[in-house]
């Protein structure tokens, strides 16, 4: 399989802080990967590097067939239309309805005027497709409900639907289940895996919850302080690795308190 994402010695700093440091890995097309690690370990930064919202200070990133550092703004935008991203706080427009939010999933490829028209007068074909997608993610009755009126779990489904309507080649999700209860979190992670298998898109999800990651993902990439400390299958993740990932040093305990 050709690669979907390929990082070579990527470093990204914020001032003097190295949020991501000398990271290299490859994710193949169609692969399902969980990014794990404590908060502050660089998962969000890494995801924003993968969708080209941030550029690396050092190293090279290749996404599908493009080298990010040779892309101009237009090429980056075109590339992003093929990468669906679900940010940690979902990034929905709460004053718009579900169908309006989902239809914006294709805004990147359709352009400004078409998007405005889509918001006001969605086409029949789009409405039908979106209805099918919402049905698949389990909230078809919320098509015309404003997102602000939906529960956290339902909003999450709208964000997933927006990603699906994009017909993406890869889906990046940043801690998609950090704000819902454990039962719902499990359903959502499971759903993401199933959708990736059904549609064949590459899936990369950052997760706080190690148990969930182990249950649903064939590959885990573990981060700690911006570095990769584990990369392998769940059953290769031993006691030692877990300690390297999650055990706080005294210094970090102090910082956390």
């Amino acid at each position, binding site marked *: 399989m050709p690669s979907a994402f390929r990082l070579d010695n990527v470093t990204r700093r914020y001032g003097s802080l190295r949020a991501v440091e000398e990271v290299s890995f490859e994710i193949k097309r169609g692969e399902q990967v969980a990014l794990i690690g404590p908060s502050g370990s660089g998962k969000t930064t890494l995801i924003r590097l993968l969708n080209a*919202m941030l550029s690396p200070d050092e190293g090279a990133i290749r996404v599908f067939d493009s080298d990010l550092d040779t892309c101009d703004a237009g090429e980056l935008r*075109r*590339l992003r239309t093929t990468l669906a991203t679900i*940010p940690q706080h979902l*990034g929905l427009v709460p004053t718009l309805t579900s169908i309006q939010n989902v239809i*914006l999933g294709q*805004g990147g*490829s359709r352009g400004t005027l078409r998007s405005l028209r889509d918001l006001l007068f969605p086409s029949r074909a789009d409405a039908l497709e979106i209805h099918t997608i919402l049905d698949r993610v389990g909230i078809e009755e919320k098509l015309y409900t404003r997102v602000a009126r939906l529960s956290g779990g339902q909003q999450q489904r709208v964000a997933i639907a927006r990603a699906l309507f994009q017909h993406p080649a890869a889906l990046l999700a940043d801690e998609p289940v950090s704000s819902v209860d454990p039962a719902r979190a499990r359903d959502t992670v499971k759903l993401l895996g199933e959708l990736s298998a059904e549609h064949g898109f590459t899936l990369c999800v950052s997760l706080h919850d190690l148990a969930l990651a182990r249950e649903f993902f064939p590959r885990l990439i573990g981060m700690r302080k911006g570095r990769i400390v584990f990369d392998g299958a769940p059953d290769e993740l031993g006691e030692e690795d877990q300690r390297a990932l999650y055990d706080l040093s005294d210094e970090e305990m102090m910082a956390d308190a």
Partner: protein
Amino acid sequence: MKADTGKYGLKRWVGAGLIVAFVLCARALGLTPGGLIPPDAGHWERTGAFFAAALDPAFDYEDENVPDEADPIWWKGIKGVFLTLKFAFGAMSLAVPTALVLGFLGSSAWWPEPCGRRARALLRSVYLVSRLFMSVIRSIHELIWALLFLSAMGVSPLAGMIALALPFSGTLGKVFSEIIDEEARDASQALKAIGHGPVQTFLVGILPRAMPNLVSYSFYRFECALRSSAVLGFVGIETIGLYIELSHEEFYYREVWTYLYLVIAMIVVVDLWGAAIRRRLHTSTGGCAI
């Protein structure tokens, strides 16, 4: 605790400083409590007459020379209220679109990401120029703008409207840009991440997100514009303020009070209406608006 006394100590110092500053200013301006008392019998009489007229507003003109076929005073007052409303509405129709453009230029949530060094420098200077422009036009009061425009263009409703619209565009634009940058970051980042362009992000993500608060704040400013347009009557623009000024000049205090009561009624009605609109907007966004 030590840190606490430090904090409250500072507050006490600031409080004491403010009182000292007030006393110094009052002395410099020659203020005494006696300044509130009218200096001689003539002034006493006029003050008394003015407040007595509050209980006895005019239902007919006090002026003998008003022709019989003229509108009755209450009708003239109501027309004046509508002129004031029309004037404030006209000024706001100029100010809101201007403020939207200025607010767009003076905000950063829609900037492309990543943003090259040169693009960033350009956007940053547009941002600063627009912020500066907004603070300049709003730091000059509408009355002063009115005097400038009236002397340049003559007394015309359009000159007055522009005079009112200018500082209002500045204030609205500043608040708009803050609403845009504070509320819409999440949604705009998400849309940019899936390939939306900057202007597109603004139109389909940021504007809908910020709309309830933009509308609600515009409505609040409309109430301010109403009061201001009444005041602009004093420099000759035909609003209810002009009628108040003319009657006041002739010491027709009972007429003044008729007009004042109409102004108060107008403000109360618009306030209630505005409050109802704000309540609706805020519940319908599920509490995500401020």
